[in-house]
């Protein structure tokens, strides 16, 4: 006796969260059954293995049919074939587009191209995430990217509108899209200590302040591309380190303000010129695409690492960066205050986030 056909169709589509997770994680039906057995479901329910197999198959088939709709979540809401309560629909979407930290760190900032897709086997092997799941996550990134890449308006809002994500997930995807578009390097060894959250935080700040959208809300791609004009202008900041008087003045102002307040005052005083040079040079180099990509590498190399080697506490870093950017306003000879603020406010936020072990 072999089962030729075995189906269950409810007027309200049954969604088993546990099986959905296994499906999303890319397990085959037999693996999923084995995992469910291991989780003790047979003992809890008194079911047989055959029942479990049939149930798992059924859910997998349902998910497979839903997958097409999940590729365009508004379709899931308007379709008539599967009657699913709204809360369940939201859960389906949210889980489908959720990603693994380990995976996103591997592809963050990479071009979402066929080439990268080919490397997914390696990523799968390295992270222990099934290839199927890697593909889904990669395709999700790419799909969202394609849909929103040429749109006007806020990136996160567009994503939310077209994919019906939660606020949190939409912002994460905005970061992923932003990184993919600007191809920021995140894979270097010295950046390994950074989490996706760190990068997403920086992305959000950069989107808010450094993109076209920060000045003009009516342009295409406004949140995707950095404001080229702004990046050009950043060259003007070079004067802060090139002009020796200005640099000295800046240093003395900062030192005066921080004397006695900083645990690492002497180290700061000794390193001020190096640090300032590092931060200003990063700005000045952003005209070149390649240097834009290396932004995070540069920040870590030029600021995070020197401070860390001197064991600056985070509080001291914060005090220093605040003082460092504020005192520029007191430099009479410096005319690019607004530019400086646009640059430094964001950078300060990023650096503070990036500064950890």
């Amino acid at each position, binding site marked *: *006796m*072999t*089962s*030729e056909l075995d189906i*269950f169709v409810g007027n309200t589509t049954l969604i088993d969260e546990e099986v959905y997770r296994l499906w999303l994680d890319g397990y085959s039906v037999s693996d999923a059954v084995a995992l469910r057995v291991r989780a003790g479901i047979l003992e809890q329910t008194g079911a047989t293995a055959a029942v479990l197999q049939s149930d798992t198959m059924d859910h997998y088939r349902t998910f497979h049919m839903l997958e097409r709709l999940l590729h365009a979540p508004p379709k899931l809401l308007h379709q008539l074939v599967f009657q699913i309560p709204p809360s369940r629909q939201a859960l389906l979407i949210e889980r489908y587009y959720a990603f693994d930290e380990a995976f996103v760190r591997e592809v963050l900032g990479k071009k979402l191209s066929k080439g990268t897709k080919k490397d997914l086997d390696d990523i799968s092997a390295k992270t222990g995430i099934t290839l199927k799941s890697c593909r889904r996550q990669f395709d999700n990134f790419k799909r969202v990217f394609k849909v929103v890449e040429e749109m006007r308006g806020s990136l996160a809002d567009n994503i939310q509108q077209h994919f019906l994500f939660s606020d949190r997930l939409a912002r994460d995807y905005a970061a992923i899209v932003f990184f993919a578009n600007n191809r920021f390097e995140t894979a270097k060894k010295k950046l390994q200590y950074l989490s996706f959250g760190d990068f997403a935080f920086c992305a959000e700040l950069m989107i808010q302040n450094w993109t076209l959208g920060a000045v003009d809300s009516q342009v295409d791609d406004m949140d995707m591309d950095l404001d080229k004009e702004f990046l050009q202008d950043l060259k003007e900041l070079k004067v802060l380190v090139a002009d020796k008087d200005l640099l000295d003045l800046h240093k003395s102002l900062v030192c005066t303000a921080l004397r006695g307040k900083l645990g690492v005052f002497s180290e700061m005083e000794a390193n001020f010129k190096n640090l300032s040079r590092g931060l200003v040079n990063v700005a000045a180099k952003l005209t070149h695409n390649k240097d834009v990509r290396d932004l995070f590498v540069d920040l870590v190399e030029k600021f995070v690492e020197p401070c860390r080697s001197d064991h600056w506490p985070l509080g001291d870093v914060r005090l220093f960066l605040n003082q460092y950017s504020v005192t520029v306003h007191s430099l009479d000879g410096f005319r690019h205050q607004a530019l400086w603020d646009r640059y430094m406010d964001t950078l300060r936020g990023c650096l503070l986030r990036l500064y950890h072990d």
Partner: protein
Amino acid sequence: MPGKLKVKIVAGRHLPVMDRASDLTDAFVEVKFGNTTFKTDVYLKSLNPQWNSEWFKFEVDDEDLQDEPLQITVLDHDTYSANDAIGKVYIDIDPLLYSEAATVISGWFPIYDTIHGIRGEINVVVKVDLFNDLNRFRQSSCGVKFFCTTSIPKCYRAVIIHGFVEELVVNEDPEYQWIDRIRTPRASNEARQRLISLMSGELQRKIGLKVLEMRGNAVVGYLQCFDLEGESGLVVRAIGTACTLDKLSSPAAFLPACNSPSKEMKESPLAHPPSHGCRSTHNSPIHTATGSRLTQNFSVSVPTLIYTGMGSGSAGKEGGPFKALLRQQTQSALEQREFPFFTLTAFPPGFLVHVGGVVSARSVKLLDRIHNPAFVGIMGNTRSYKLLDWNSFNSDEPETRDAWWAEIRQEIKSHAKALGCHAVVGYSESTSICEEVCILSASGTAAVLNPRFLQDGTVEGCLEQRIEENLPAGCGFCHIPYDELNMPFPAHLTYCYNCRKQKVPDVLFTTIDLPTDATVVGKGCLIQARLCRLKKKAQAEANATAISNLLPFMEYEVHTQLMNKLKLKGMNALFGLRIQITVGENMLMGLASATAVYLAALPMPGGIQIAGKTPSDGSYEQHISHMQKKISDTIAKNKELYEINPPEISEEIIGSPIPEPKQRSRLLRSQSESSDEVTELDLSHGKKDAFVLEIDDTDAMEDVHSLLTDVPPPSGFYSCNTEIMPGINNWTSEIQMFTSVRVIRLSSLNLTNQALNKNFNDLCENLLKSLYFKLRSMIPCCLCHVNFTVSLPEDELIQVTVTAVAITFDKNQALQTTKTHIEKSLQRASTDNEELLQFPLELCSDSLPSHPFPPAKEHLESARSNSGIPAAQRAVTVEKASPMGEGNFRNRSAPPCANSTVGVVKMTPLSFIPGAKITKYLGIINMFFIRETTSLREEGGVSGFLHAFIAEVFAMVRAHVAALGGNAVVSYIMKQCVFMENPNKNQAQCLINVSGDAVIFVRESELEVISTQQPTANCQQSCAGGEVTT
């Protein structure tokens, strides 16, 4: 020209990409009704076209309005080649033809293609203006309402229940026409869908005419079926119960304006004064479609069995003369009817007087092939979309399909008579077809009915009152209808354990739902008897003979299994019994499902004893005693599980000695309906006190084993195949309707009856287990209306289809101790009485000045005085969990789902929605779909294909209901699911036929909120409402 149909095509969405180059579609729509077609403009390059068309108007006569579906085809415009069809929508406009149902159909319909499935949606608005005054309206069959529900619909009351209506129409199956060889599968499927739609429409119209002839205005329990007879044709047949219904207006008065667009009414010229004055009779002649080209040159009438309560006893004293009187009177009401049959399974209080037992009849027929070359020529003469009247050229055929059914019905009628009953309730008909052999089956419950509902209020009131006085509630229907002195067979009878006045059988089998006032002990459960019999492959007559020889044995075995399982559960009655015999190439399958209960009025069932034939061997004896112990343990366990603790009855109270309860199974076998003498077959296992199983051979061993393999549902689960679960009455609002299909392939090696039985048993048990597992999140819950259908699509394939609904209930309330029971039932009794008052009885108040129904209270009093508590202690008055507001029910209704959105359409095979009140019936849903694929593997194999198709069918049903302004389908049934596959060719095809009643329901919690807002609502009510909402 009595009607104008108006259609507007608004927009489309999610259309498929038809032009690969642009990834877009240039869509337009053809709207067709009858022979008239309109087209919209082409909406270029869009997957979401906005046509916003003008109103397309069709001027048609009402016959066409009833027969024809509106056909909407979405196409992709192609400048250079033929336009490609995207898909179609068939809309049955019948609901627009009743004055009380929907007035507009408006909404998104899935665009369906028989090859690709659903391909986007289309927004359509449909209206009908009927140009006839109300009188004329009544004359046409347009005004007749149809209900699938097998009880009086919730917001109506029955004035008169007229009786049985039936009709059938026959046509050639387009799939088997010569033209099918040259047309595409799509064209063939569409021709079939359209034809069946047309035939259903015609059938419904004809039934409507019959109803009007009987002076009724509605058909309740309407059941329409298709017989796909292959080359010999296509039969669409329907049965139903004609009624005169009145709309109940009272509780609906303060309902919120529901989303049904009733305001549109004024647009319809219905409101016009009867200026036309055309009171002429309808122009559609009444012609019964008795014709059939399906000649029959061979027919076997199968001896039929009647299942009754068994037992023999002395003659009754008081019952006799009264019964005779009653019979005399009701006979006058029923005798004029050809078939006193009722498709209803639940009845207005007082309608059902006595129940005799299940009557069934089967007949094996041979379908004949077409021998009629004149056919095509004649076809040319008729209008292409009209059905042929087979009478015109086939009238010389002596045997017709109608005659076949008439024969079966006659047999049923005579069986009922043999049981002293003048009517058959819970009546249904079915067929099973394999190649050219067809088994026709009919079954029902023989019953004695109260004549009051059967004719206009001309009944003498005195007699009626006597009836009611003589019938204590809760047990009256169990009392035997047949005369003890003149019984057609010896039977074991006892005095009713409830009232002590009348005789009852020891076991009662019925096809109806448990009457609402029945007194039940504990809970009920689903019982199934499953059976396979191998049969040699044979042709024609030999085959039919082989089948008809097997049938009586199958019936007997099914009956024995049911009896054994019933006793194993410690129960004494079956409700909702449905026995399905399916014929295949090389086997016959029998599947009987019923809901077992313990009726307080019937005696306690005895145990099961096992006896070995050869008690020589010591180890064998040991084995026997081991088995015996196992069985006794199981019975004890079941009694605990289902809370069966019947009250002990002491002899003194009764006064008269109770005949010793003897459990025997008896079979009544009648040779044919015409013969008055009834040959009977006493197949019981000797005269023993307990039911004895003799395990003298391996077969019997198997039987015993199979008895014990049925695993009870996991804790928290109950199941039944009736509308409601006896013993549970506190439903919460969560429901989940589902369909599950399984097909197994038998290994062709060593096929024996035993192996087959085991396979079939495992299939059903595993299916049930899977359901329990899948629905575990709903615990505590009950699977209601579990409906199994077996088919044998191929030699070694067995297909089982199950449709049921899972309903959650409140466990705490269910476990309430017996302490509060009497209090509760007293309360309930009073609410019941109130409910009764609003129920139909007021209509006969002129003929019955006194309160017609003293039932519940009196019953309680009598029960108490009888035995000083114990009798009533554990007795639960089973009450239908009807949405009509019982006080206790209201309190338990859960708050509505927080996330429920507008678009949700509930589906349920039950006639009600727990925790809600049905406020309007919008019309019948009767849909037929075909789906075919030539890329089976790509669509996920057979499972993927069928899963998607069933999901699509649900979606289309929901869309139609939503477009009618409804939010639920009740009495939903999947009447047919014919699945054929050819994996080698990567092909599969499936036909599905579903029906139900589209309704609008309002949650009770919402109703209460409204009622509290009503200034007129009395304080008590509003207080109660307030409590609930907090």
